[in-house]
């Protein structure tokens, strides 16, 4: 995958590992590469794609037929199987990066539609990934992306279709409303943790469902639901509040991408350069040491969940003011949980999250094309995504499969603590 532009030096655990000197520094370029997290990431992706290939072959009708006479003539099974895998992954590439068939028409959409789809899918994933990643850095696990995206989308959508305002101002207010909605939903979990010690994983899971039911309720009341009240769908957002398309109206990619990149820049600045970021990282690394050093741990929890919620709220903005124009029951499109995989693959740093968001965005865009071109179910993308993260989280396993040396724990290993932690 060409989007992999990791900087191993930006590894969030690098300072932790270097500090206690557990990992002996390997010498030589190749051994250093083999021991690096980049290598684990690449091998995790390769392994997941290989397993995905087996699934593609299993789902292919011709291969299934050939498997019936496998013991008479096994070669057919393998031939058809490999053909299916090849066609599947070619379609995935064509849907995500560049499609020579549509490009032959010579139109702008023909050239750029695949990459535009990738970017459109990547936008909310990057924003959600930043949200989860930020919480990770502060030692919290934001599993409530779904609820925060929904809260953001409800607020942004309401401003978008209910108010009548001029261009520019309307969009700005819509974005702010989305940020505030997400921040409120995330901040609630932070507040509960700070004031009562309620574990954020439990509260954010519960808040996800509360948001889902709230959305279902709103989509059944007048003022939100679009007449003639048959479907659970809201009024469409006014043109004045929509994020403008980046490459003209013929492809879907919209200015939400710029918001996502700005958010990534803000994330990097916040974590690496600001005092607040230092405080958050200190709380994340060791909350007791941070408290001893005079930091207000409780306030940090509230702050980080407010910002994390705001980032997910922005993902909701991108969904309702950019990709879609109407609120529906599945406006969150599973972003909340996909964001967790993005943050883990991106190792909770800004560059990594952008790259991981692009990769998963490409998988989603390509998966749609793959389903229509070869009939391989799009759920394959979910499987590959889960496998990648599973392998990233267990680097020992990846290293054992590929027989390379190296040490180091997986992401999240340093925060392997329970409900009482």
């Amino acid at each position, binding site marked *: 995958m060409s989007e992999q532009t990791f900087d191993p030096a930006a590894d969030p655990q690098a300072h932790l590992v270097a500090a206690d000197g557990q990992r002996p520094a390997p010498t030589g370029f190749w051994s250093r590469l083999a021991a690096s997290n980049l290598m684990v990431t690449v091998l995790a992706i390769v392994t997941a794609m290989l397993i995905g290939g087996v*699934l593609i072959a*299993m*789902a292919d009708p011709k291969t299934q037929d050939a498997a019936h006479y496998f013991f008479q003539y096994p070669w057919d099974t393998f031939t058809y199987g490999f053909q299916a895998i090849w066609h599947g992954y070619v379609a995935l590439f064509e849907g995500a990066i560049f499609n020579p068939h549509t490009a032959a028409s010579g139109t702008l959409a023909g050239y750029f539609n695949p990459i535009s789809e990738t970017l459109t899918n990547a936008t909310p994933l990057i924003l959600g990934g930043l949200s989860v990643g930020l919480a990770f850095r502060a030692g919290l*696990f934001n*599993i409530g992306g779904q609820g925060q995206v929904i809260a953001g989308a409800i607020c942004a959508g309401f401003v978008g279709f209910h108010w009548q305002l001029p261009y520019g101002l309307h969009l700005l207010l819509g974005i702010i409303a989305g940020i505030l909605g997400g921040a409120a939903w995330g901040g609630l979990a932070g507040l*509960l943790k700070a*004031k*009562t*010690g*309620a*574990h954020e*994983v*439990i*509260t954010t*899971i*519960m*808040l996800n*469902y*509360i948001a889902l*039911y*709230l959305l*279902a*309720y709103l989509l*059944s009341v007048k003022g939100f639901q679009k007449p003639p009240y048959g479907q659970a769908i809201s009024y469409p957002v006014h043109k004045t509040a929509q994020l403008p398309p980046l490459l003209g109206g013929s492809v879907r990619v919209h200015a939400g991408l710029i918001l996502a990149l700005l958010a990534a820049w803000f994330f990097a600045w916040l974590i690496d350069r600001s005092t607040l970021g230092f405080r958050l990282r200190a709380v994340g690394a060791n909350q007791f040491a941070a408290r001893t050093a005079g930091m207000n741990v409780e306030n940090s929890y509230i702050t980080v969940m407010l910002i994390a919620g705001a980032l997910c709220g922005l993902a909701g903005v991108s969904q309702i003011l950019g990709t879609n124009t109407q609120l529906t029951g599945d406006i969150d499109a599973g972003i909340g*949980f*996909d964001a*967790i*995989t993005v943050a*883990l693959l991106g190792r909770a740093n800004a560059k990594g999250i952008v790259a991981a968001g692009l990769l998963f965005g490409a998988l989603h865009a390509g998966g749609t094309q793959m389903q229509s071109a070869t009939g*391989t*179910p799009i*759920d*394959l*993308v*979910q*499987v590959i*995504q*889960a*496998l990648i*993260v*599973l392998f990233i*989280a*267990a680097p*020992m*396993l990846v290293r054992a499969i590929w027989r390379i040396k190296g040490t180091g*724990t*997986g*992401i*999240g*290993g340093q*925060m*392997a*603590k*329970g*409900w*009482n*932690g």
Partner: protein
Amino acid sequence: MSTATMQSPDELTVEHVVTRAPVSRAQRWGAGIALILIGLLTIWRFGIDGHHDQDAKIQLGATGAAHVPHFSIPAVPVAWVAGIITVLLGLLWLAVPRRRWFGLIMGIGIGLFVVALICWLASASSSAFVDVVGLLTSSINLAVPLILGALCGVMCERSGVINVAIEGQMLAGAWTSALIGTVVGAAAGMLAGAFAGALLGALLAVFAIKYLVNQVVLGVVLNVLAAGLTGFFYDAFMQPHTQALNQPPLLDPIKIPLLGDIPVIGPLFFDTSIIVYITYVLIVAVDVWLFRTRWGLRTRAVGEHPKAADTVGINVLGMRYRNVIIGGAIAGLGGSYFIFEVGQFQKNITSGQGFIALAALIFGRWSPRGAVAAALLFGFASAMQVTLSINAPAIPSTFVAMVPYIATILAVAGLVGKVRAPAADGEPYVKD
């Protein structure tokens, strides 16, 4: 607490000092004010604003069945009495909070609210009625997968492994049950469902125990994996061949000879499908197993203080593996319940029930009895939703659907008592 003070060998005086477990401020005020508000709501909505011209018509069985016991009571006075008692209970709790009365007082308060609500619903119009037995039956049916999921959680988390993947284990169990149930038969389908859940449990165990992966991360990823795999295989195999691969038989209710003939209780508990009977057995089994057997004692030791357990020679990792895999099997059985109730596998058939089971586990304070009670409560809330949407369409049933989640947040926030997880829950154990 008692202290014995010895003054001289001849004159032995024993002084008893009773110390009461203190009630936290949040619990005192939160619960007290909540009770008063519930009471006032009851008086206002069901009493003052109630249906004065109609009596509440309560039926103990479905219409059409022979000899359905039924009676009617005036709804408004019931609401007044229930509301006033609830307010008094709230004031009593504020004045003299005693931890041991807490469950009783909250139970009575919420129970009275529910009684007033049902009477109000049953008096909504001249044709409105509430079939209490039907309501309870559907509560139990809705609660069964929650109970099984929560018992899975008890097994895993009491031994120190967080299981957020209950949903995924149920989904895997459901898919496998549908496939094997169609091809072989219902009994094999249930076994296969339990096996699939156990397989996912084993995956959770290996990654959590051997590879020390953060268990919450792992649970989330396994949920995605299970949803992806079942969705993929559903589209690839089941959808094109529904007749051959996705037409599992429905389980017929089995009536237990004598017990099934008892009015009200019989049809409620002793005339249901085999999975519900297995659930009864599992509830008792897990409770006895956890608190009355050597294995259970060891499990709890491993979950609370693995180092101490290891020191006395308990195989910490082995206990965890076994418990997580058995737990997975129970959740997988919960998944097959969906199949044999509905009849076909659909994508994401569990629709978040695994997470409600997790909520029930936490709300029930990680104990089997508490988890079962919480699951029944949540099942009742879901069943209430249906009754509400029929008898009082003006009340948005989505708010009733939120009840389990809000209750769980209140529980972990300490407003309804202290909720504490097993001490080593989620912490991998590494021998040093």
